[in-house]
């Protein structure tokens, strides 16, 4: 049954009447439906859509530090494109996205393991995996900085026993971006795990049982039943994951001190935006950067929607 019978009815009716050339008249219960979505709609308009329009407008201006702005045309966009730090930050952001996406296969594997029949304490495992996701990024960043600490960190102690050389993981330019990426994966896996567990639960048991009778092993069933039927969930998760990774900021902000020699190698686009807008008083250029990032995210999401036809199976 549809959650919004009114809208469904209106839709059905709408189809009929547009053919006749006149728009449907809003009925009483349809107005009620609008009332229900109003809180979300208003919130979206005030906190997302209006700022978006403003950001777009500001991206063509030069901003005074204390208010007031002058129109300067496309100069800000030219600055963004010419600035090497932008391209470096873009490269870093793409690395974060690539690393961030590895949370998905990990989450799928763990989810299917947790869905095995007869496993005890599933709720506990699920909670344990989910805790990092609901922990404040600031706390996560600080704790991982202790683990990574080159002088006293636990990681070096453990690796030292295995014969690996001591390293300053977050201040060595060659490892810092991966060290942060690993924390990202660690803190988001739980979220995707919950999504995938729900997705797997939605796959009818009979399919597995039938395949089992035909002699398919666990691995075979995973690749020919679970994975294809999970693909709509995976598609959703991959879009969320990509958007989040491209907007990554807080962990890097917490984990990378200003004097960290690896700062250029770890700065993300949003990190650069923050620096321009709030430290260097270049709000106009920052707005242009933010707008370009939005376009990039939109383009990549569009691309994913196009590509999904090739690999996502709906039912």
């Amino acid at each position: 049954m549809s959650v919004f019978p009114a809208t469904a009815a209106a839709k059905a009716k709408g189809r009929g009447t547009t053919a006749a050339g006149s728009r449907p008249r809003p009925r009483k219960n349809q107005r009620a439906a609008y009332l229900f979505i109003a809180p979300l709609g208003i919130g979206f308009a005030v906190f997302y859509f209006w700022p978006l329009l403003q950001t777009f407008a500001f991206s063509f201006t030069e901003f005074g530090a204390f208010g007031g702005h002058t129109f300067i045309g496309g100069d800000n966009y030219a600055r963004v494109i010419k600035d090497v730090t932008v391209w470096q930050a873009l490269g870093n952001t793409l690395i974060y996205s690539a690393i961030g996406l590895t949370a998905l296969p990990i989450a799928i594997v763990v989810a299917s393991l947790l869905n095995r029949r007869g496993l005890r304490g599933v709720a506990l495992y699920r909670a344990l995996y989910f805790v990092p996701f609901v922990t404040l990024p600031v706390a996560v960043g600080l704790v991982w900085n202790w683990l990574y600490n080159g002088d006293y960190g636990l990681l070096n102690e453990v690796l030292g026993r295995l014969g690996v050389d001591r390293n300053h993981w977050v201040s060595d330019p060659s490892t810092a971006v991966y060290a942060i990426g690993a924390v990202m994966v660690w803190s988001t896996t739980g979220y995707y795990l919950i999504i995938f567990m729900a997705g797997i639960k939605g796959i009818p048991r009979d399919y597995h049982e039938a395949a089992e009778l035909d002699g398919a092993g666990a691995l075979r069933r995973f690749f020919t039943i679970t994975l294809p039927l999970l693909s709509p969930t995976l598609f959703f998760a991959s879009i969320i994951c990509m958007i989040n990774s491209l907007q990554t900021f807080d962990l890097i902000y917490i984990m990378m001190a200003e004097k960290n020699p690896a700062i250029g190698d770890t700065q993300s686009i949003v990190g650069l935006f923050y620096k321009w807008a709030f430290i260097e008083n270049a709000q106009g250029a920052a707005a242009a950067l933010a707008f370009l990032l939005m376009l990039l995210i939109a383009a990549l999401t569009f691309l994913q929607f196009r590509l999904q036809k090739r690999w996502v199976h709906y039912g």
Partner: protein
Amino acid sequence: MRRRTLLGGALAAPLLAACSGGGGGSEGGGRTTLSYGMWDPAQAPGMEKIIAAFEKEHPRISVRIELTPWASYWTTLKTSMRGGTAPDVFWMNAVNFQLYASSGVLEPLSGHIKADATPVDRHPEALVRLYAYRGTQYGLPKDFDTVGLWYNKALFDKAGIAYPDASWTWDDVRDAAAELTNPRERVHGFAAEMDRQGKIYPAVCGAGGYILRDGRSGFGDERSIEGLRFLTDMVDRGWSPPQSAMTESVGRVRYWSEKVAMNYDLSAMAGQMYAVPALKDHGGIAVLPKGRRRATIIHGLANVISAKSRKKEAAWEFVHFMAGRRAAGIQAEAGVTISSYEGTQDAWLKSMPEFDLKNFIDMQEYAVPYPSSENTAVWENLQYPLLGAAFSGKGGVESAARTLGEQMDRALKEESGS
């Protein structure tokens, strides 16, 4: 989860401003309430005492402190300036001063100073000049900070080396650093940290170079590079931990935990050093050793008046009082910072008798004011990303410094063009 933090930060600033500003009380009713913006909670008790003394002298004016944490002080201030809810009087530093002065959001004080004969000449000249913009004074200093050489007497005794004194040169520092370094105990002789106020600027100036002169960067200058090399060389030779290690545990902490024998650090840190029993017992202070010339960096905070304040007369009374001897005396007794008023520093010196704090005051003579321009933050932000590799023992300090000089010049040009 990411969105929440970003949005939270952006929302918090105007909200805070809206809560704190505005309701400053009315001039009617015979009593004016001023708001006084500052960021350091450690100084709040001292400031309260000064305010009490001020209110006794001016029964019709009262002052209320608005404390904003350092991390959000400037963002909040900027936002509240736009919204017209900024404090009447507030703290200013050298990095931000010219931006504020050039934007016309600060009240010019020169006329008031002349009319009321404010004792400006009793404050260090270098400091007073920091808060003048195009010949007009906009701020009056309240305290100052210089950089000195902190050393660990116990580690010096162990290595059998005489303590640093005013006769020391950079060669002495290098010799001592080599002797003091003890890899087995993870002790380093020196902390050549990538820190602009504490290390980079003093070393560059000590080598006879400069950071900023006549709107041009000094980083490409031969002598400036020599100054930088004094620091990076310590890292290359293993006498100082590399920057990659000091990002995670900073030089100051290494000095506290007696893992670094010598460290350049601010006078403002004296109180915190004094609280460490080992350092109170055997921590020493000397003037900065001489390179090609004697130099240290002097910086201090100033009180300024918002141009948008509707209580400028009362605000000036307060700023005038703060620049006087009485306020300085109270501040010095509070013991947190060195008061900038000449001759009131005794109370500060006496508050920590075990430390040779006088060295910090003696260095005023050759102290170089903290370099700043209209958009200081922009070119300051270029420094650490470019110099990071050289301070981590990867070499290339000369080319990094030249690149920094070029980029800084470009930033300065853009700044004067806009």
